[in-house]
């Protein structure tokens, strides 16, 4: 039959497919490059000598390169380590606290039967609708009255009160087969054992995902630490680098170096846990 027309159509089809494929690659990689440019700008400036920056010329690759600023921060300015340590400490404690406290209540809400638990869950979930920032003024007065201003608890505790972890864990715990817990009850497990030895080990995927997300979110907090931290020894990286800018108003390359340093830890975390982190994002929308 029409062998030739079939093969023509075939060529057409292949041709069109290839074209659209190429277009797709161009678009996707084009956007990726555009997304990369700011990172490049940061790195580029951090190794550009001051003279070149001051010239105000546009360049992609600096004609002259210096690592003096990196050296300055890495070697001479220890405060950035202090900030990194502070940030790490805050993020770690927050993460730990969120995982423990949220998993406990999620366990209680999904696995234990007590009157009023659905109301409690409802209230917690409803607080999802409350945007974090509308609360800062009264929250500050509360934290202040508790004498926690200028301490890490002021950052950690309000964060741990957020409903996200409860929401995610409740959803996850609900899907753990009831039979597992029942088998455990027949085996003589107490509620605490069921929590610690059945539910928690089974939830490692969500706990790591949630933990990562909380860690990064906490690491990146800006407005709230800016408000409650008064002492530069206590600063976190995000607010520290802004301070540096004020102090080094004239030197974009210095600022960029500090930024590169400040973002490096999370970049490494992201490199290592790309999939986990992305899946934690996806879980929030209930799509992952």
């Amino acid at each position, binding site marked *: 039959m029409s062998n030739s027309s079939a093969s023509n159509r075939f060529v057409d089809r292949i041709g069109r497919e290839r074209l659209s494929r190429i277009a797709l690659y161009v678009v996707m990689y084009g956007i990726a490059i555009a997304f990369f440019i700011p990172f490049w700008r940061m790195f580029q400036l951090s190794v550009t000598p001051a003279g070149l920056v001051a010239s105000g010329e546009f360049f992609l690759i600096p004609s002259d390169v210096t690592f003096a600023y990196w050296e300055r921060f890495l070697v001479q300015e220890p405060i950035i380590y202090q900030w990194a340590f502070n940030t790490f400490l805050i993020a770690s404690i927050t993460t730990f606290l969120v995982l423990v406290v949220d998993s406990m209540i999620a366990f209680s809400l999904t696995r234990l039967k007590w009157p009023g638990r659905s109301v409690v869950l409802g209230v917690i979930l409803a607080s999802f609708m409350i945007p974090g920032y509308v609360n800062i003024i009264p929250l500050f007065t509360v934290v202040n009255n508790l004498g926690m201003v200028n301490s890490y608890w002021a950052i950690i505790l309000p964060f741990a009160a957020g409903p996200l972890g409860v929401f995610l864990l409740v959803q996850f715990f609900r899907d753990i*087969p009831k039979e597992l817990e*029942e088998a*455990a*009850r*027949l*085996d003589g497990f107490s509620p605490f*054992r069921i929590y610690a030895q*059945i539910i928690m080990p089974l939830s490692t995927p969500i706990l790591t995902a949630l933990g990562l997300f909380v860690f990064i979110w906490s690491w990146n907090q800006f407005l709230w630490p800016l408000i409650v931290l008064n002492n530069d020894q206590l600063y976190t990286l995000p607010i520290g680098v802004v301070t540096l800018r004020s102090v080094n108003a004239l030197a974009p390359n210095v600022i960029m170096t500090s930024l590169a340093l400040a973002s490096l830890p999370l970049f490494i975390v992201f490199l290592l846990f790309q999939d986990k982190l992305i899946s934690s994002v996806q879980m929030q929308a209930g799509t992952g």
Partner: protein
Amino acid sequence: MGSITIDNIRKEYGGDSGTIVAVDGVSLDVRDGEFLTIVGPSGSGKSTLLRMIAGLEDITDGTLRIGDQVVTNVAPQNRGVAMVFQEYALYPHMSVRKNMSYGLRLTTDLSDEKIQSRVEETAEMMGIEDLLDKKPNSLSGGQQQRVATGRAIVRKPEVFLFDEPLSNLDAKLRLHMRTELQRIQDDLETTSVYVTHDQTEAMTMSDRIVILDDGTIQQVGTPETVYAEPANQFVADFIGSPSMNFFDVELEDGRFVADDFDYQPSKDLVSRCRARATTDEFVLGIRPEHVRVDESESITAELDVLEHEGSDNYLYLSKHETEWTVRVDGSTRFEPGTTVGLSLPEDHVHLFDRQTGENLLVGERVRNPSSSSATAES
């Protein structure tokens, strides 16, 4: 003592839209060492009943004894029962060995060595000794099933409870595990209560079968009894595959008149019917394997589909609205479209009261299954 005495047990769930009665006044004696199967359609309350025995659900009303002890308020782990779940419920993060030993460690004060030797002994019995250090996820369905059973066995309970333990296996494996479970129960002689919705499983495995519908017992009896003498139309329909053929008939002039055929019964049959019937409206039932193909007969139907299955052929016939399923020998051949004559041997004909569904030909059956004598066999 592994006997179970269930006395007028009731279970209500408080839902959003009123209470649901999941089990409605069930009374039942399970004898020591017996293999009892509970069958019934989805939602009939099988799992609920089993879970009440296990202590996983509170009992709304009634009493439950295991051995001589009222266990209504005894914690699950102290009831001397072990359960095998449909999804196996193996602890996925623990090795098979830990899965099996955990219950022993928590509920007994056996030494570690004793526990280990008991676990290994049981594993050998189940043929899973090579799997002891694996995690459940790396096992096949059949292996997981074996581990779940082993975990129950190792505790040497007085009663095994099974909730559809085979329904996650594919057909061939299910067949295989079925016989294996039977073999184990034969060996251990532990009282077993086995829940399934698959009547074939129930028929092949059990000493006795309980047929549950809508939270109430429809019939209790040996497989042979429930197959040959179903207490009512529900049981007759539920047991046997393909299902019994049913036809609405009216008794007119000593004949049962259906839409598309007449059936001439013996006088005796008619009088036995009449003796217990409330009206003249009946349902006539006959199993596919009991219908005879007989060209000379007056009952006819046209062959729609012939299915060849193993050494049998199944004929799907119809006449107007009346449909027949008939099992014949594999060598019998018909072309679709042929008109076939059928005869219904009176021995195998069942007659049900169209109002109550009761099987009119089965003697002294007790109709109210929740009364105390419901556990008696016919």
